[in-house]
């Protein structure tokens, strides 16, 4: 095994992990609080990326370009929850039915984007900056910025969840919604907040994905969703730290496999790790406690 290629692929893997981690943190937050596997998450990522692409094409500047993705992601996410999912949840549909609704919503978003984009793949202009050597690894300024963004999101999420009353109430809600409600925690407001934050992170993940890959198509998020779900489940529902650790494992594994076995197998590596963890610790993932049964949207 060529050690230079191995170290380079680990470096790429850390950058890929940062991209997966931002999506996985949003996904796991929403999964932890609502207990719903949201299969439209990848499409909301794509929606966010397209929003930034449009703003970038309008030459509105860097800040609006960065803000557009999380903003559109948050709006799309909360709209999905309060319209489609709310209707089906009111009809006493269970976790599987709601999961199918998210899948359908995701397909609607994807095909709408496809129709509007005329099946094109768009180039995204984002300077990657100079090359930086850090120990045995080689990064670009852009990839360091992506890693920094993931670290910032993790720090902000941890601070919000562990240091604020709102965050502690959210953690309580994710453990036991009935007891939290009996304590007077405003459930509806909390769940809406969760959809907004997870949607914003989905949009941001779409943006970082596109800045890393420099191309975007309507189906991009759906492919990336596989790795995001793998990281969220591997890390344990509702655990941002677990999601980041899992993203690191998956990111590095996919890049190392891509370097030595071809990019064709990179996603398979992520799924293989997920399958292994599901066999070893089926109900909890690696870094979280047991999950509950009921879905709250």
């Amino acid at each position, binding site marked *: 095994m060529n050690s230079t290629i191995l170290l380079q692929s680990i470096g790429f893997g850390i950058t890929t992990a940062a991209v997966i981690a931002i999506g996985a943190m949003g996904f796991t937050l929403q999964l932890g609080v609502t207990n719903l596997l949201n299969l439209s998450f990848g499409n909301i990522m794509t929606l966010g990326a397209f929003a930034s692409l449009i703003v970038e094409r309008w030459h509105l500047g860097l800040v609006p370009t960065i803000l557009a993705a999380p903003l559109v992601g948050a709006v799309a996410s909360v709209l999905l929850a309060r319209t489609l999912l709310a209707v089906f949840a009111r009809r006493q549909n269970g976790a599987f039915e709601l999961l199918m609704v998210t899948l359908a919503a995701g397909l609607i978003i994807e095909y709408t984007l496809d129709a509007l984009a005329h099946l094109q793949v768009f180039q995204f202009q984002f300077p990657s900056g100079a090359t930086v050597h850090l120990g045995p690894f080689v990064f670009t300024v852009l990839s360091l910025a992506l890693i920094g963004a993931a670290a910032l999101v993790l720090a902000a999420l941890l601070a919000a969840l562990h240091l604020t*009353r709102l965050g*502690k*109430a959210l*953690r*309580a809600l994710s*453990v*036991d919604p*009935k*007891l*939290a*409600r*009996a*304590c*007077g*925690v*405003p*459930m509806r407001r909390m769940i809406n907040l969760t959809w907004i934050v997870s949607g914003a992170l989905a949009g941001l993940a779409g943006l970082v994905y596109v800045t890393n890959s420099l191309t975007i198509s309507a189906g991009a998020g759906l492919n990336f969703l596989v790795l995001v779900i793998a990281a969220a489940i591997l890390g344990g529902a509702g655990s941002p730290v677990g999601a980041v650790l899992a993203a690191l494992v998956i990111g590095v594994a996919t890049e190392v496999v891509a370097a030595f076995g071809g990019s064709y197998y990179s996603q398979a590596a992520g799924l293989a790790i997920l399958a292994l963890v599901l066999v070893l610790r089926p109900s909890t993932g690696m870094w979280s*406690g047991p999950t509950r049964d009921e879905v709250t949207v």
Partner: protein
Amino acid sequence: MHDPLLAVAGASAGYNSVPIVRGVDITVNASEIALVVGPNGAGKSTFVKTVIGELPLLSGKIEFAGTDVSRWSEEQRASAGIGYVPQTRDVFPTLTVTENLEVGGYRLSRTDCRHAIEGTYERFPQLRTLRHRKARQLSGGERKMLAIARALMASPQVLILDEPTAGLSPKIAHQVLEELVVGLARLGCGVLLIEQRVKLAAAIASNATVLVDGRVRSTTTAEEFRALPDVSELFFGPLETAAETP
């Protein structure tokens, strides 16, 4: 004579519009322990879920401090002063002791919450020493103490305890009822106590309601209840034996 803190009149409730409890009347006054007993399947938990607002009332009325709260949500009832300690899943296991108390006092202002936590630690000094520990690491008795302390954070006027001694050893069960529950009533709190350990609970209760097949079989003072050999033999003797068998 003051109005009761909690007055349930003719309450019928159940699941999917099928009543499990029918026409139940119960009142709870301040500083009083109102005991509800009955065999398994009598509808005690359904009744409790109806009072706290988890299940809708099909007919009847629930008044709290003179206000009709029958259509209020669970959160509204909790905010108004109806506290609840469930039989199981009574604390947030992944949160620390202090965080559990903070969630219990979520409706309070930041300052009031801080004072309430300090007051709780003065009342339950054992919890202060455990404050950084996750609730899932506590023993059964410590956990129940935390559950009650968590419910007390919002200073409820009425506290509903659903089988607080379930799963506890006889010694700890005795402590929970004799010290914690009696202590609550002494603080002026009205307690609605659902309990399977009938003899222990009857010894501290002010009155007792027997629920059988979703209906009230009898409502008596605690003294009268303790003097009912037929009822205890017929309904509660075997149940208590079963409940206290390890």
